[in-house]
């Protein structure tokens, strides 16, 4: 996407070249330094000849796994965002995120033009996060949530961004706020990172004809979100040495609901999501429920996650897993949080699928925004 990358870079450079006091420009960032290690796990051989095991999946989307040796690579990141407001109703935003999952790389996560014709409507065109789940579009901003990572039993998919448009509407109905959006576009990935967990050879995956909508309703203690996305999938496999199309325009339907409660110092986070690929492979559902309580600067949480697949053509090769997580967030100053999380992952896949195996993972992180 050289054009979009250029746009993002332009926004950043223009932003940076503006005097800091100019009100039409702002420059912000976020960062996560996370270190983790698998304490114990059942898999003894490398996964896909690539990942050392015993291992635990921390970030499906970017192919980030921890092994027995302590590492800061799978989840540490630094994000920089610049927004340039070049007319009263217009702005351009670019966001670059640097990761070290597979060597130090900078990725353009967001690069979009935004037009606000009225207080209710926002139209955006460019590169954005695909809002598959509640946390999708701010998954990189660890400071914005209490775990080290959103529950991976729900958040593990192959496409993260898309190029296209979004039309968003927001209004207030009594004590309820309503925010809805409709979006469309496509995303083509080369050497897909999530596919590295499942294939030993390169896979190129394209989601095309993406059409979707989401709706968020919130009052002061309850937030509900519903989403629906439909698209077609193309996939090319390189295992024979040449590029071979293995999936052609197969339809998938993704839908889900999230419900979050903040009642005094209690908090509940829950999400349920379905990936319906039954036309060409399988149907999957992921669910996560978390309960926590704020004690001043401390927020401990208990989270249960579960992922299940059904496959009517290959019922023995399905992925299934359960995760139990204990996490603790501590507010360290005005815009930094320190977190520690322990995850027990139970791999119930197969019997014909040789997956990642059971594991116990410990992770520490420092999350900041600036």
């Amino acid at each position, binding site marked *: 996407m050289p054009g979009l990358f250029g746009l993002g870079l332009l926004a950043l450079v223009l932003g940076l070249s503006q005097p800091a006091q100019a009100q039409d420009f*702002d420059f*912000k960032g*976020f960062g996560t330094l996370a270190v983790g290690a698998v304490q114990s796990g059942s898999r003894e051989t490398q996964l896909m000849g690539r990942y050392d095991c015993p291992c635990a999946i921390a970030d499906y989307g970017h192919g980030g796994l921890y092994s027995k040796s302590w590492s800061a690579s799978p989840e540490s990141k630094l*994000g920089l*965002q610049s*927004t340039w407001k070049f007319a009263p109703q217009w702005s351009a*935003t670019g*966001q670059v995120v640097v990761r070290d999952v597979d060597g130090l790389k900078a990725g353009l996560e*967001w690069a*979009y033009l*935004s037009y606000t014709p*009225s*207080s*209710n409507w926002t139209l*955006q065109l460019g590169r*954005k*996060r695909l809002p598959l789940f509640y946390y999708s*579009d*701010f998954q*990189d*901003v660890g*400071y*914005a*949530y209490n775990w080290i990572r959103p529950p991976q039993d729900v958040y593990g998919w192959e496409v993260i961004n898309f190029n296209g448009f979004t039309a*968003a509407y*927001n*209004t*207030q109905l009594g*004590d309820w*706020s309503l*925010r809805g959006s409709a979006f469309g576009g496509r995303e083509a990935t080369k050497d897909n990172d999530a596919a590295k967990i499942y294939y030993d050879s390169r896979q190129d995956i394209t989601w095309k004809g993406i059409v979707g909508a989401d709706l968020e309703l*919130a*009052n*002061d203690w309850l937030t509900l979100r519903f989403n629906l996305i439909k698209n077609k999938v193309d996939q090319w496999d390189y295992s024979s040495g040449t590029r071979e199309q293995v999936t052609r325009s197969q339809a998938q339907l993704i839908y889900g609901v999230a419900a979050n409660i*903040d009642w*005094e110092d209690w908090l509940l986070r829950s999400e349920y999501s379905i990936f319906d690929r039954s036309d060409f492979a399988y149907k999957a559902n992921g669910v996560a429920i978390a309960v926590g309580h*704020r004690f001043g*600067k401390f927020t401990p949480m208990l989270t249960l996650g579960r992922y299940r697949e059904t496959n009517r053509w290959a019922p023995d090769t399905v992925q299934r897993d359960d995760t139990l997580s204990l996490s603790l967030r501590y*507010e360290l100053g*005005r*815009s930094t*949080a320190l977190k520690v999380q322990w995850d027990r992952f139970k791999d119930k896949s197969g019997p014909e699928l040789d997956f990642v195996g059971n594991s116990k993972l410990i992770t520490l992180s420092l999350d900041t*925004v600036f």
Partner: protein
Amino acid sequence: MTTSTMSRSLTRVLAGLLLSFTVASAWAEMVIIVNPKNPVANMSAEQVSALFLGKSSVMPSGATAAPVDQQEAGPLYEEFYAKVAGKSSSQVKAAWSRLTFSGKGTPPRAMASSVEIRKFVASNVDAIGYIEKSAVDASVKVVLSVN
């Protein structure tokens, strides 16, 4: 009641007493103000907090809202978010981080003083802000009082 729970409840009572003293001395009476031309007469705490937490960008009347904030280190900031939104300053920052980095909004601009906020609200029809009750004059309209 075991010794440990007893000492815990004792600590809690003491902490509560201490807190009530500090609150009484440090927290001022506060009002949420809009422009006199704004048709909205009253607002609930939920409606105000929706604007300051970025859940909504429109007034109950349907008009655009332009919220302006106090300085984070200032005396009113923490009190406003605690009483009106029931949120700590780190919760407020976390909520805005979500919106800022996902293209859904930008936090209200912080102004240097209550006088500046009052002047801004007095000269902008869409504006909404919060100041000490003692700083109010006829140039602005009070839509909610917080004690």
